[in-house]
């Protein structure tokens, strides 16, 4: 039997006798996920914090060493489950980079649409939950309708909603249906007004501003040292965005700007995310326009060795049958190599470091999970602040437990 005290690790030089130790989490309604923080508080002020992570660690990196490449896509869903398509695409782009597969422009644009929808869905959750944590439930309930619409779009494309497993090596499993395009159009028509109204609810709301301004602020220098990426880094004033720095999936064809903040506090993070949603809407519009001039029946690259053939052909054609068998059994030829590929996830640079020895599974696969890296800063961000600020700070960081614990 373990001593209960053993799990509570007080920081060095703790003055516990004069202060209280509060266990915030692992399952606390205000932490939106499995996060444990052992706070040492003096009244309501936080003296120090120790973060404990790993409660939902599922050893994806180890499991990936046994799986053929196409079976790893569903593992990536479960990292950042608020924007699973970005993870899927990141993984597929990594494999395509390793195999040297060039995807057609139409596939790239379809992927951009899906990734930007995922980014909106992710930011929508984060921004609206910040409202909830400061006491404004209305905005959250209001915008959920449109996250639902995004999930319906996923459903039209791949059949599932949360853990999407969207896309295959070389493209998509099937073409976008007219219903999917109709829903995307509907989203583009209706959502801007909703986002405008959502911003009106909170951006200049005095209570919201008082609760978020100056809370969890970090300087650009510290943010870089702590390995911040994504909106959290941009809120501190550094304009690093993987989509612009190392364009993938034809992002270089799009015209968009990178919103940046100045103070790096929770309010700026909120503002940066909202501004990014406007950019995402514009990117999706541009992509829809570009699609009009491309042949509508292309939805995957011509790589029979890696892309599953049509079922009809499997029954009637010899090559299709062979490729089908090899792919399903995980015996597709994989080149040896070492590749690092990063995409701009909704909360930062999501990297895949893949080493292949030519076998059916990766020799080593490592996920660079943005929120695992920047969550380290949490103790520093909340030190000296009020307990209620720690909650707002946590939701403004957009921490996703699934990604953090891999």
């Amino acid at each position, binding site marked *: 039997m373990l001593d209960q005290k053993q799990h509570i690790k007080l920081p060095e030089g703790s003055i516990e006798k004069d202060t209280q130790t509060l266990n915030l989490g692992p399952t606390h309604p205000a932490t939106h996920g499995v996060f444990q923080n052992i706070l040492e508080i003096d009244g309501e002020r936080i003296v120090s914090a120790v973060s404990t*992570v790993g409660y939902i660690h599922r050893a994806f990196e180890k499991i990936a060493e046994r799986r053929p490449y196409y079976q790893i896509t569903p593992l990536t869903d479960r990292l950042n489950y608020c924007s699973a398509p970005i993870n899927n695409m990141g993984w597929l782009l990594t494999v395509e980079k390793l195999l040297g597969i060039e995807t057609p422009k139409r596939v790239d644009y379809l992927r951009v649409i899906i990734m930007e929808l995922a980014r909106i869905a992710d930011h929508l959750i984060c921004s609206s939950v910040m409202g909830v944590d400061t006491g404004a439930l209305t905005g959250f309930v209001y915008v959920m309708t449109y996250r639902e619409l995004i999930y319906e779009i996923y459903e039209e494309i791949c059949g599932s909603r949360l853990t999407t497993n969207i896309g295959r090596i070389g493209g998509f499993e099937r073409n976008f249906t007219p219903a999917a395009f109709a829903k995307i159009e509907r989203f583009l028509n209706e959502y801007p007004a909703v986002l405008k109204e959502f911003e009106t609810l909170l951006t200049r709301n005095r209570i919201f501003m008082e609760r978020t301004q100056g809370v969890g602020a970090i300087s650009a220098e510290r943010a870089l*040292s702590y390995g911040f990426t994504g909106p959290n880094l941009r809120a501190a004033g550094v304009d690093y965005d993987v989509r612009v720095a*190392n364009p993938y999936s034809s992002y270089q064809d799009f015209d968009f700007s990178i919103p940046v903040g100045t103070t790096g506090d929770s309010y700026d993070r909120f503002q940066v995310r909202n501004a990014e949603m406007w950019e995402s809407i514009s990117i999706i519009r541009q992509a829809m326009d570009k699609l009009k001039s491309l042949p509508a029946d292309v939805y995957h690259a011509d790589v029979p060795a890696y892309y599953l053939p049509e079922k009809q052909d499997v029954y009637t054609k010899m090559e299709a049958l062979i490729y089908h068998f090899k792919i399903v059994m995980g015996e597709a030829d994989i080149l040896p190599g070492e590749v690092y590929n990063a995409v701009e996830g909704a909360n930062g640079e999501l990297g895949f470091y893949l080493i292949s020895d030519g076998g059916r599974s990766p020799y080593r696969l490592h996920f660079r999970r943005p929120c695992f890296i920047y969550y*380290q800063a949490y103790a520093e961000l909340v030190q000296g602040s009020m307990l209620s600020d720690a909650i707002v700070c946590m939701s403004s960081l957009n921490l996703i437990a699934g990604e953090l*614990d891999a």
Partner: protein
Amino acid sequence: MSLTNERIQQRLTEKFGDVLTGFEEPFGLLTLTAQKDYNLKVMQFLFDDEELRFRFLTDITAVHYPERKNEELAVVYHLHNLQDNIRLRLKVFAPVAKPDVFTATKLYESANWMERETYDFFGINFVGHPNLIRVLNVDEMTYFPMRKEFPLEDSMRIDKDDEMFGRGGNL
């Protein structure tokens, strides 16, 4: 003028000579191997040098190669120069019997948990780390699970009783 892989290699070779080996560019990413005791010196130089400016630590991880004698564990650093937008991969090999590697926590705050994670899964002992304890696995764990001597369960095994999982017994 923006920095190129050739220029970085030239600068590093001038400074460190034969401490650095194995220069290659898989998929355009400059990769090099440093002698085990020089990892921090090389990273410090990459950080401080006004031309190189690799001041962002993207990732730390490790790889286990059981067949390489006396250099079974590779610690892999991904560094990023954000101004010139160029990445670099630095590798250090350590023997599994004594996997001591200097910590980068003094250089980058973010190295703290990344090194803890690497220790957690591979048992790399980061010398000088302020708090080298497990981060994702339970504290009571006595082994380093990502090493290759711990294979996953054989999916073809037949001695498993599927009845426990509601899938019927013998097929």
